[in-house]
């Protein structure tokens, strides 16, 4: 049995009703690649405004959770809910059936993602990278989108690079642009998939500072897969420890990091902190 603290504990910023609807809900989610079971009947909820860090050994299914939420992968079984609406499925004549592309497009607009591999569009300027989706997905006017791009770049400290191509920027700068690009869509949920793992060590701090700032100034819900335990401790309300597609331990970072209850959490943290 995974050990779990109360999700509605004092760490969540605003007072939450016990019956408050979770923003994200995984219900018996199964994901397999061939014979390899990556997620094994996974159940968990994330409340609005919660910042959750997913930790665990590689191959434990953390990134798969983010990819399922972004609809880059599809569940094999179970249902994912976002803000009360099914994401992996949709209602047809009162029954839940597999979601169509169109249904997923509608629901996933609430979600933004920043990738380990940056994935900026190299053929566009920084400005176009940020404004492309607001203009063409949300139908925002070009002027409004430009203004928003300028604000976001200001926030990530790259206001002067707006007309550059991403290839002219460092990895850390590119990742800050990617964060701005995701936020330009005003998502309710921000998914961060090992966003500093591909960066040179000296560039990591700048990116984490931007994320800390976002955590401090907004109430955006975050799901972050990371190996930066210091960042997890500072920013998250809740840490989920994964192993073999299951949640092994679930609780506030202060407790998980200082007195882990599960043997697997202890050995994982030991290995990570040793390496760090």
């Amino acid at each position, binding site marked *: 049995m995974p050990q779990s603290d109360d999700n509605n504990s004092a760490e969540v910023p605003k007072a939450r009703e016990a019956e408050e609807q979770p923003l994200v809900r995984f219900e018996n989610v199964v994901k397999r690649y061939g014979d390899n079971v990556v997620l094994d009947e996974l159940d968990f909820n994330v409340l609005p405004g919660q910042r959750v860090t997913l930790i665990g050994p590689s191959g434990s299914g953390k990134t798969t959770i983010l990819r399922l939420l972004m609809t*880059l992968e599809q569940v094999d079984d179970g249902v994912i809910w976002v803000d009360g609406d099914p994401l992996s499925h949709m209602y047809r004549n009162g029954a839940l059936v597999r979601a169509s592309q169109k249904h997923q497009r509608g629901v996933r607009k609430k979600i*933004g993602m920043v*990738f380990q591999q940056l*994935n900026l569009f*190299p053929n566009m300027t920084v400005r176009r990278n940020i404004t492309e989706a607001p203009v063409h997905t949300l139908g925002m006017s070009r002027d409004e989108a430009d203004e928003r791009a300028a604000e976001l770049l200001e926030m990530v400290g790259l206001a002067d690079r707006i007309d550059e191509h991403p290839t002219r920027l460092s990895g850390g700068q590119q990742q800050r642009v990617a964060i701005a*690009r995701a936020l330009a869509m005003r998502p309710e949920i921000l998914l961060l998939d090992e966003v500093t793992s591909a960066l040179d060590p000296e560039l990591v701090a700048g990116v984490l500072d931007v994320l800390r700032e976002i955590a401090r100034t907004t109430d955006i819900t975050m799901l972050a897969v990371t190996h930066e335990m210091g960042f997890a401790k500072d920013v998250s309300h809740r840490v989920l420890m994964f192993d073999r597609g299951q949640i092994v331990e679930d609780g506030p970072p202060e407790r998980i990091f200082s007195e882990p209850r599960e043997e697997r959490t202890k050995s994982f943290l030991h290995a990570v902190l040793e390496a760090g």
Partner: protein
Amino acid sequence: MDWGFVGAAVPDLLSGLRYTLLATALGYVLALVLGLAVVIVRRGAPRVVATPVFWVMEFIRSTPLLVQLFFVFYVLPSAGVSLSPLTAGIIALGVHYAAYTAEVYRSGLDGVPTGQWEAARALSLPGGRTWGAVVLPQAVRRVIPALGNYLIAMFKDTPLLFAITVPELLFEANRLGGENFKYLETISAVGVLFIAVSVLSAAGIRLLERRYAAV
């Protein structure tokens, strides 16, 4: 070598060259557009459509262009489709080379990292924008050299249109040569004109490559 005869033959040879260039240009545009359509169908369409398209393209690449020219010009009329020699030639060239440009596009698209598609999906970009603003601009840069080679290859294949009576360069040269028993002059002139156009085209393609590589 009768230089006087070469000079007198120039107007007729240039008229032939005009047909050659016209067939190349229109055939190439057809190949570019049709090849793109093929690769989009093969990627996006349901399997019942995509699989037959794949086999048709395999078939076209595995049969000689000359046979295809004869088919379009001499066989299609029996099915009620009569085309002028030039139109038949352009269609056969375009369809034949579409089978090759489709492969070039495919490799160009495969070269666009999966992360680009995923980023477009994460931003819920409409399909048209994903293709038009993200994927194709990145793929185009990779495919220019290969597409350029096929342009020159197609240009060098246009003498085959001779076989379906298109009055292109070789057709004119052969006619002039036959009428005057001066094949050395006329056929050499064909060679020179082909070299001139090929070299110019290759230079143009290199210019394009350099422009797009700079992005």
